[in-house]
């Protein structure tokens, strides 16, 4: 009965985990293990054994103070906090693996030619200081164009830009596939004009 009443209440589950309730931990692991796996799957070149190791490290971090140091009050804050831990753990795991084994496909390009290594290196704000001004300008241009779209179109645009596949966009935003493709192509023409002719 008690376990059932906890379903859906993330903060309560966390509190129960911290007070030594093993059943709460089992529920937490079941719920967030899957979330962690989904987050890691977004890095297309992380193999299952690596994902499993990363997920294990994430939960060890949570037990070693990650949960007790969480200061938020809502499940939304926890989701973001959790994602940060998963992403950071993923990055440090892959960096250490890369040092040890060169054969790990850190440079495996996706269909758009963007590799995980590119993404990881961009996490460091000081890695390309020479690009800062350009990036800010580019951001400003994106903002101007995106602002003129309807909110739903903005969301489609954003997901496409982040590399989400049309099928994922359809599921998360609940819009028809045809709409995603047609709207995005119109938006990108507009953006290309703005960025290309600066």
């Amino acid at each position, binding site marked *: 009965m008690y376990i059932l009443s906890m379903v859906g209440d993330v903060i309560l589950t966390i509190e129960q*985990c911290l007070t030594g309730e*093993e059943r709460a*931990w*089992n529920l937490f*692991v079941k*719920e967030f*293990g*899957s*979330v962690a*796996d989904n*987050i890691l799957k977004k890095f297309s070149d992380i193999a299952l054994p690596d994902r499993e190791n990363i*997920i*294990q490290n994430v*939960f*060890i971090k949570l*037990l070693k103070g990650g949960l007790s140091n969480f200061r938020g009050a*809502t499940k*939304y*804050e926890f*989701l*973001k906090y*959790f994602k940060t831990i998963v992403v950071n753990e993923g990055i440090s795991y892959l960096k250490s693996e890369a040092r040890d084994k060169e054969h790990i496909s850190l440079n495996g390009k996706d269909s*758009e*030619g*963007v590799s995980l290594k*590119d993404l990881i290196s*961009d*996490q460091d*704000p000081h890695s*390309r200081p020479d690009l*800062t001004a350009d*990036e*800010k300008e*580019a*951001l400003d241009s*994106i*903002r*101007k*164009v*995106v*602002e*003129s779209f*309807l*909110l*739903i179109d*903005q*969301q489609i645009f*954003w*997901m496409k*830009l*982040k590399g989400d596949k049309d099928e994922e966009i359809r*599921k*998360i935003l609940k819009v028809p596939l045809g709409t995603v493709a047609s709207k995005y192509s119109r938006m*990108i023409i*507009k*953006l*290309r*004009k*703005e*960025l290309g002719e600066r």
Partner: protein
Amino acid sequence: MDTAFKVTLRKALNKIETLKTPSCLEVETIGFYIEGKLSKGEKRKAEEHISSCLYCLHQLMELKELIYFQKHKAPLPSHLLNKLKDLYPKKERPIKEFFRDIISPFVQETANLIAFPFRRWQYATVSIVTASVAVFITLTLWIPEKGIMTIPKLDPNSFVQVQSLSNEGRILSEAKGVIIDPKGIVATNLYPIMGASLTRIILRGGKTYQIQSLWKDEEKNLALMKIEGESLSALPMADLKQVYIGQRVLILTDQLKTKKGINSAIISDLKAYPSRSAKGQVQYIQLASLTAQYTGGALIDQEGRLIGLLISEEKGMNLAVPLREAFNLIEEQKPIPISKLKNISFSPEALNYYFKGILARDAQRNNEAMEFFKKAIELNPNMEGPHLELGSIYYIKRLYDLEIKEYQEVLRINPKNTDALFYLGEAYETKGFYDLAIKEYKKIITLDPEDAEAYYNLGLAYLTQGQKGKALEIYPKLKALDPGFAEKLKRLASSSTQSRHN
């Protein structure tokens, strides 16, 4: 899109944090927005901000994805799940001896508790004084045993009896009424009167008035009637701003007796109608009644000021409407002959379903609310509220065609409902029918030339159609009504020009 272009964009987006401003939305607000837990007004504000803030758009999409992951769980491999479960440190629970560990401490604690006040005389004194105060407060608040006259400022002459009669003079129903204006305005429930040929108001002293017409609000089960007379005893009105959740209030259930005519209740919620025109004003007051039986009547505070009138017809659903705003009915309507009410399709059940829908909607149970609103419409298709509410839910569910149909129904009933016109305009825009949206916004402006939101949306619709000149024509009027909206429109108009030049 070519790779280089995409890489440029992605690199730029890695600097998204630099766009964060103090006015950006909290994660919590974005989460509530995603899960449909914001009121329509809050939602509109959130959408306005997100649509002009890349940082918040980024936050929205990130959280939306995480919530999706959480809701659509893919099972983990069982060996991994077991590994993760095993990480949790096991705690050995010592086996307690039943008497030593459980019974004995319990007996000891109880004995300590009983003996505590007597260990020192000061504690005994404090205990006695505390008990006396508690008894005094309980007796003071036990209203049903107190006479009506002992409540300050409450004049029993303010309460009247309303009888509805058939053609033959037979009494069809009786209701309670309250004088809300010394010039003879009486407020009562509408539904007991529907179907009557004539209505009679009886004052406390026995004086009787025949009433031929009234002002009505079907969705609030409220009727106002005028009796001829000067300096009648009207109750002073409570200021709604000072009414609060948790406030203890009184329900006057029987105006002609002095005892057992008052029930006590606590205000459990103040419901603002989620429409633009209501501007957040309280439309319904929900009560937690302290009595099990159904009660109707006037709602008053403990100073004897009138707050509202109970309107629900169903036991267990204690809703009241505030009366301070009721005078608006007199300004907005012409009095309707009571005999004409016979021809109006009417179902008290419909109102009950409508209220149930509102309660379900407020509790974020949208599917349940939808069923209640549909039932209300089935019983009475001519109530605006359930159609408007249903339209709102269809909007949340992205069923835009159904949403449009509901707003059109509201406008069939009342073509001047500016809320329905506004939401219809927004729904048309969502569907990409900007011409139709423009028509609806123009109708609102004709009905209410001070409606800033309608001007703003009209301007946006013009911009989307590339009619920048027309959008800027609106600017001076919008600036006078709402400078914030005006500046935003101007900024958007300017960026649309730049895009076209490029």
